[in-house]
């Protein structure tokens, strides 16, 4: 008999309506993107706020990466909504008891902050281009708001703004992502999600994913531009990745341990899930390959003082694996929570469709969209240190 509706297969007993998984692959992509936003911004802040000079080569690039990811963040949500044209209902008439009601405000505030900080950071470039003879000078002129003052006084004024925005940006970026963790952690209907540690788990995994993305993109861009890789900078990012990766692992371990230790109703189904579907998705992909291998690799390189090509290869490999681990973490939280039935007596299996609005193809395009945007942005606003900057540094 041909089914009328392609529902998720299940074992045990699940409520009839649960066989349609509400939050699809796109809702896996959504916290993944906000995580990249927060993580990339963290690296940018390490230079802008905490004055860590070794991060200077990637500081502006980190800001652009954060901005490009942020501009795409609403896309998976809009694609997921049954009525995307009504999305602003949540902003026009927010229902304040909902964690989602804050999203419009928090995201808009942070996006504006990012745009403003980017504008101040790249203002000298905008002005130079606007006063040059390039074909896009009118565009740069408009982008600079026809304010061409690059005097020392104006620049120091700009620096104050950049510092202030970067300082405000730290709680804004991390608050935005911590709140995404709250969206899941605050729901009492699912034991898999209902945890006070969820915002913190999301936050630390966000920082490592953003740092990992920057490592991968920085090395790739150096190869494409045929410029030498700044090893102290790369090593700094590797340290950041290593440190926060340990925090992320400990937090997730503690969260999982308390879930099992509490052993509330439905724990049998959860343990069946952990010993079944999660073996590959969590223990092999997320924990083993994605987290343990990078942490061992990074520890070894730091211990041995590895440098040169071996350091670059090792750090990039770790970064790529961490990107995989964080994606798997999002999957295991978002999809995992829905694969464990609310009855506490059954398990479902989610198989995303390839095509369609919420299919694999759409999700892949949404993940690639910030990279495409970044590809354009680095051409319009080159984030790399120029020769003049190098002389200044010397």
């Amino acid at each position, binding site marked *: 008999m041909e089914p009328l509706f392609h529902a998720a297969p299940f074992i045990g007993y699940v*409520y009839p309506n649960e066989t349609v998984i509400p939050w699809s692959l796109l809702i896996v992509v959504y916290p993944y993107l906000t995580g990249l936003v927060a993580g990339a911004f963290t690296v940018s802040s390490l230079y802008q706020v905490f004055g860590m000079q070794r991060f200077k080569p990637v500081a502006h690039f980190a800001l652009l990466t954060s901005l490009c990811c942020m501009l795409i963040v609403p896309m998976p949500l809009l694609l997921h909504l049954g009525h995307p044209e009504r999305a602003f209902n949540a902003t026009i008439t927010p229902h304040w008891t*909902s964690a989602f009601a804050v999203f419009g405000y928090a995201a808009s505030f942070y996006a504006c902050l990012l745009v403003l900080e980017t504008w101040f950071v790249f203002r000298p470039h905008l002005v130079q281009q606007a006063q040059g003879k390039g074909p896009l000078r009118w565009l740069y002129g408009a982008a600079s708001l026809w304010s061409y003052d690059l005097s020392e006084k104006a620049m120091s004024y700009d620096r104050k703004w950049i510092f202030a925005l970067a300082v405000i940006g730290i709680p804004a970026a991390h608050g935005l992502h911590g709140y995404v963790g709250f969206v899941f952690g605050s729901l009492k209907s*699912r034991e898999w999600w209902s945890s006070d540690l969820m915002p913190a788990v999301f936050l630390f995994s966000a920082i490592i994913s953003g740092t990992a993305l920057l490592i991968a993109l920085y090395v790739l861009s150096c190869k494409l531009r045929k410029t030498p890789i700044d090893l102290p900078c790369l090593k700094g990012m590797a340290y950041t990745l290593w440190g926060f990766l340990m925090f992320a692992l400990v937090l997730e371990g503690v969260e999982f341990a308390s879930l099992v230790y509490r052993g509330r109703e439905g724990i049998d189904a959860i343990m069946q899930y952990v010993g079944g579907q999660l073996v590959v998705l969590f223990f092999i992909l997320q924990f083993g390959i994605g987290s343990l291998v990078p942490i061992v690799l990074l520890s070894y390189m730091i211990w041995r003082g590895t440098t040169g090509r071996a350091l670059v290869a090792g750090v990039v490999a770790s970064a790529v694996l961490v990107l995989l681990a964080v994606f798997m973490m999002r999957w295991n939280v978002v999809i995992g929570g829905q694969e464990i039935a609310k009855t506490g007596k059954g398990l479902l299996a989610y198989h995303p469709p390839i095509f369609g609005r919420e299919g694999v193809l759409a999700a892949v395009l949404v993940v690639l969209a910030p990279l495409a945007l970044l590809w354009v942005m680095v051409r319009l606003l080159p984030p790399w240190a120029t020769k003049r900057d190098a002389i200044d540094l010397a």
Partner: protein
Amino acid sequence: MKQENKPSLAARRRFLSKLGGAATCTGAAVAGVAALGAVQSAAAKSETAAGGSFPTADYDWTQHRWAYGVDATKCIGCLRCVEACKRENDVAADAHHFRTWVERYVYLEGEDKPRIDSHHDPVNIEASGSEREYRFANRYKDAKVEKAFFVPKICNHCTHPACVQVCPTGATYKTKDGVVLIDHKYCIGCQYCVQACPYGVRFFNDRKGVSEKCTWCYHRITKGLQPACVEACPVGARIFGDLQDRQSPISLFIRNNRVQVLKPESGNAPNVYYVGIDKEVS
């Protein structure tokens, strides 16, 4: 050089201050519109409370407090309630979208845990021959059954509904007469409420792009009728009525029985009262 720059800097400051001013004005305008909306909606609510104009002119929702009862000892699993609900409320005709459903619990000899199934079980779909018709397959006819019973399920119209709490737009709300409704013209279809409901009673309506669930047939009860499922039940397993009326069927049901609710630990304070269910029912 400095003299040239000063006016420019001042111009930029002026521009930024104007920008700030414009933002403040826009903010004030938005806040004004929102406040106006709030005033209008408050006015509408007080009008309803006083005059009783929702959803029909002669219905006053402050004069009722609806509740629902299920006597599981009476249910025979005929599923007329399910079919009545599907027709009455135009619920998707398949085995994965239900405003109400019935669960079967069967304890076989020598087994500790019950075997539980409902209409979405492939064996039951096979037995009915169609996903549009609902039947319990006679799958335990050759087994030694120790205990078996049916449990009808429906939205609990909780006093503290988690679905209402998480709705970002307020499209789902609790009425004054105790029913949880969804405004299908305002719902954005995010399905946060579907996730938040501990009872799995909400689902996504693909055709309309909004969340959907049982309304206790609000269009009927406000006209003095019973919900379709209650009316269709041939054995009186489903009881509905007004708690404000001490002699209503539901008031008597609660007063004359030792009732319980599902998942009380959720803190949702459900308003569907059960008699004759087992510890395994959740």
